[in-house]
């Protein structure tokens, strides 16, 4: 159970254009790493490079003490010698083999003795509840069953590294929930190092121990799911993780509400010179609606807004409002009594505000301020809010 290391990896198909650029990533031993990002962000390429199916243009890939790719040293271990497990998005079951033969294939390649092979295949199929389909061909199975066969095929060889490429994207909502739990259970039982690629932030949040958010071939942030959710490192991450996405307001937007009405003003009043050209953000579930000014706690950020629509989902209420000309969402698990056109006040506590600089990177100065507030120290009247230094 080794940790996987990618060191300075580039992948470019056309000279000058990078699918993955200068990727430094460590996936801890026994961890469950989720590569998250929109399509075309390089996450699948990264996974395929770990498997050896694609080759980096630069950099090293190492699993434990074993160097698998090293462009600099001219070293390449072909996929069949890496001993990993991989589940494809399309499952890639072999149509001419029965379920059993599919599951046994990897063991056969490892020259496992016949008796042991049958037993381990049976165990894997048992574990995924597909034993009854053992004699069927993949075309005779439903999508969910095929998915289970693909997982069993990987599990049978008990690999130390399990790679999953959008394994749940072809399933319907109910099956997806079921398989999410299944995969998490498999990881917990096997203690293998798992890398899962997905564009579904919910999958990443629910299953992974670590999340890496990628965008255009570059890592935006790596951390635990809660870190990524609570302290998104960039506007991109903030909007990609969470549903509905985080409300963001550019600092330049009209501040008709007077001082303190825009996030920028609010932030400036607390940490000094207002950052021009940045972005403020607040999650819909951290945003509150007040019908009277008196209901807003002291020191909270507030702004006037007009209700546009109410979208009840059954378990929650989502309200769309317009604030300083920008559309915002509020989400609450308690019923929100309001009607379209109502003028209300929005508020959020300082701790729920996220501040990003002009490059979209998280403003660490603001986090520092919040941390000091929490520990009770008063911030000195500081010179300015310095911004992060970009990428």
């Amino acid at each position, binding site marked *: 159970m080794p940790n996987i290391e990618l060191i300075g990896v580039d992948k470019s198909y056309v000279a000058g254009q990078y699918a993955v650029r200068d990727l430094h990533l460590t996936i801890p031993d026994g961890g469950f790493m989720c590569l998250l990002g929109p399509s075309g962000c390089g996450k699948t390429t990264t996974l395929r490079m770990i498997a050896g199916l694609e080759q980096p243009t630069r950099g090293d890939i190492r699993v434990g003490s074993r160097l698998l790719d090293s462009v600099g040293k001219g*070293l*390449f271990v072909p996929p069949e010698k890496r001993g990993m497990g*991989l589940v494809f998005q399309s499952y890639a079951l072999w149509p001419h083999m029965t379920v059993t033969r599919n599951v046994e294939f*990897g063991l056969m390649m490892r020259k496992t003795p016949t008796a042991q092979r049958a037993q381990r295949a049976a165990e894997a199929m048992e574990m995924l509840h597909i034993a009854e389909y053992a004699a069927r061909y993949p075309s005779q199975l439903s999508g969910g069953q095929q998915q289970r066969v693909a997982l069993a095929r990987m599990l049978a060889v008990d690999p130390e590294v399990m790679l999953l490429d959008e394994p749940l994207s072809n399933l319907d909502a109910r099956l997806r929930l079921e398989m999410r739990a299944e995969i998490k259970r498999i990881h917990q039982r096997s203690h293998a190092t798992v890398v899962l690629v997905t564009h579904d932030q919910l999958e990443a949040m629910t299953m992974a121990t670590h999340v890496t958010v990628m965008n255009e071939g570059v890592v935006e942030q790596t951390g635990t799911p809660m870190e990524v959710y609570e302290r998104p490192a960039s506007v991109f991450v903030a909007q990609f993780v969470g549903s509905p996405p985080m409300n963001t307001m550019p600092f330049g937007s009209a501040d008709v509400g007077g001082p303190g009405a825009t996030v920028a003003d609010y932030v400036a009043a607390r940490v000094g010179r207002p950052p021009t050209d940045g972005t403020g953000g607040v999650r819909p579930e951290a945003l509150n609606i007040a019908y009277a000014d008196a209901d807003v706690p002291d020191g909270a950020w507030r702004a006037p807004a007009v209700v546009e629509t109410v979208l009840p989902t059954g378990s929650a209420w989502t309200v769309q409002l317009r604030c300083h000309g920008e559309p915002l969402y509020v989400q609450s698990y308690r019923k929100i009594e309001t009607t379209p056109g109502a003028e209300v006040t929005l508020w959020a506590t300082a701790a729920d505000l996220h501040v990003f600089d002009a490059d979209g990177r998280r403003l*660490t100065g603001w986090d520092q301020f919040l941390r000091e507030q929490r520990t009770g120290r008063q911030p000195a009247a500081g010179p300015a809010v310095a911004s992060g230094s970009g990428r």
Partner: protein
Amino acid sequence: MAVIDRPAPPAPPPSTQTPASRWGRIRYRARVLLAEPTTLIGIALVLIFGYLVIAPLVAIVSDAARVQFGDDSRAGAPAGSLTGYYLWRVFRSPISASLFWEPLSHTVVVGLGVVVFAVVLGGSMAWLVTRTNVPGRKFLAGALVVPYMLPSWTFALAWLTLFKNGRSGGTPGFLETWGVQTPDWLAYGAVPIIVTLGLHYYPFVFLLFGNALRRIDSQLEESARVLGANRSQGMRHVVLPLLLPSLSSAVLLVLGRVLGTFGTPYILGLPTDYAMLSTSLYRSIHTRAPGVAAVIAAVIVLLGVLVVLIDMRLVREQRRFVTIGGKGSMDRAADLRRWRWPAYGLAMAVFVTSVVVPLMTLALSTVTYAPGVFRADNFTLKFWTAESIPEAVGFPHGLLRSDDLYEAMWNSLRIVGMASLVCGVVGLMVGYVVARSPSRRLSGTLRQVSFLPYLVPGIAFAAAYLTLFAVPRGPIPALYGTTLLLVVVMAITHLPYSSRSGISAMMQLGREPEEAAQVAGAGWLTRLRRIVLPIQKGALTTGVLLPFISGLKELSIVIMLTTASTPLLTTLSINLVDFGYRQQANAAVLIIAALSFTVTYLAQRATRSNLATGLGG
């Protein structure tokens, strides 16, 4: 104030390349490419194809521009030196009219005539079968493809059997026996060639155009109608523009085929000296004028390339239309109402004319002494079964009694079988390399090189191989007259079709099943044996059967390259035509037709697919 900067990320390593790291990168790349033999196989294929395709073409050009052995006095230069003599002889000399210009104009006339004939017939039949409620659509869809499964010169022989007049000797035609003296223009030359080739090639238009018609989503036309277009406007502005590319593709394909066709113009043109480029080429080779033959072959190649380039351009244009294919719900058929049965009658008439009449004519001619006389004492099986037919000196047996037939049949099956086996396997290999090679340049090159033979009409290819391998070249001995040469030429000419189907099969399979096996620990050979081949069993079968079917009835290539020592069924039949033994010649063609039809039928049953849609050769 404790507001701190976010720590800057570690500076990326400098991207300047040291020589050591460049060396490492090259080594890395080599390791990746050599991790499996795909790349080596691809390079080998490119080299072999390159030689087998390009060398003959170079040989043509060189032969056209060099004084040939024995021509030194006429060309006024020693053999082997550069000369414009052959160009002069073909294009400007007193005999260039009969050598080149007349055959060229005949080829153009016949080409256009066949295209019009095939488009009218194939197009209208396609419309009837795909877009109307004509009765028996399913039967017609299969029946109207049958003419393409018969050897193309079947129709020529049938035509001659019906319309032959006193100009050529041997058995008279049906009409002549009935006392009708057919004029020469009806018996020989342009008109019969156009009609018989048209009857052979209309299935082409029928298939291509029919597929396009079927793919057009009727909702496209319906939306036009809802927006206020009337029926003819909808047709003109929506349907026709969508059909045009497939129609022009079919037209150009037919043109390309006519360019290289040999049997029909040979049989129907010879009596009145109506030569086309293909027959003129054949004549030049037969009269031992290789320089002239090379010039004519080069012209045929040029014309072939031109046709294909135009076709490719149009197909590329067509790509623009692909995305709107929709669900292909073309089920809404036009109701012919009281024209249903007349339309059915028309379609059946086409079927009868293009399949039943020719086959029946041929069959009847083989069991009668005097053609067209249906009296009991005129019927005989002797041309099939007689121990000896003394009056036919050149072939004094009933066909089924002669060892020549079985030898030819065995040769055909053996040579065509080998060629198609090679073709199917190589086609799949090409597909594998194109789909799998980690080097895009290699897969692109291989794809193009394997497509090259498509540009060259078969007869010109055969001429080129003749020039190339008539004498020993380097380490390669003179191959003329060997079965190896026939196998190579047949395989190469069918290579574009088989590699195209191999590529599409491998692309359709996708990389993932094989990658899954690779990750599971399977090496290259294991993957090939356990994953790729079992899955591609069907594609491989088709890839072998298609060249086999078209190879069985192949004549233009074979006529140039076979010798008396290796007769094939097709050359046997043409020999019988040359002897003037009409009954036996017709019987031989019937045997070829029966063989090719049976194999097609069995292949369709075996692969559960409609081979007709993939017929290329």
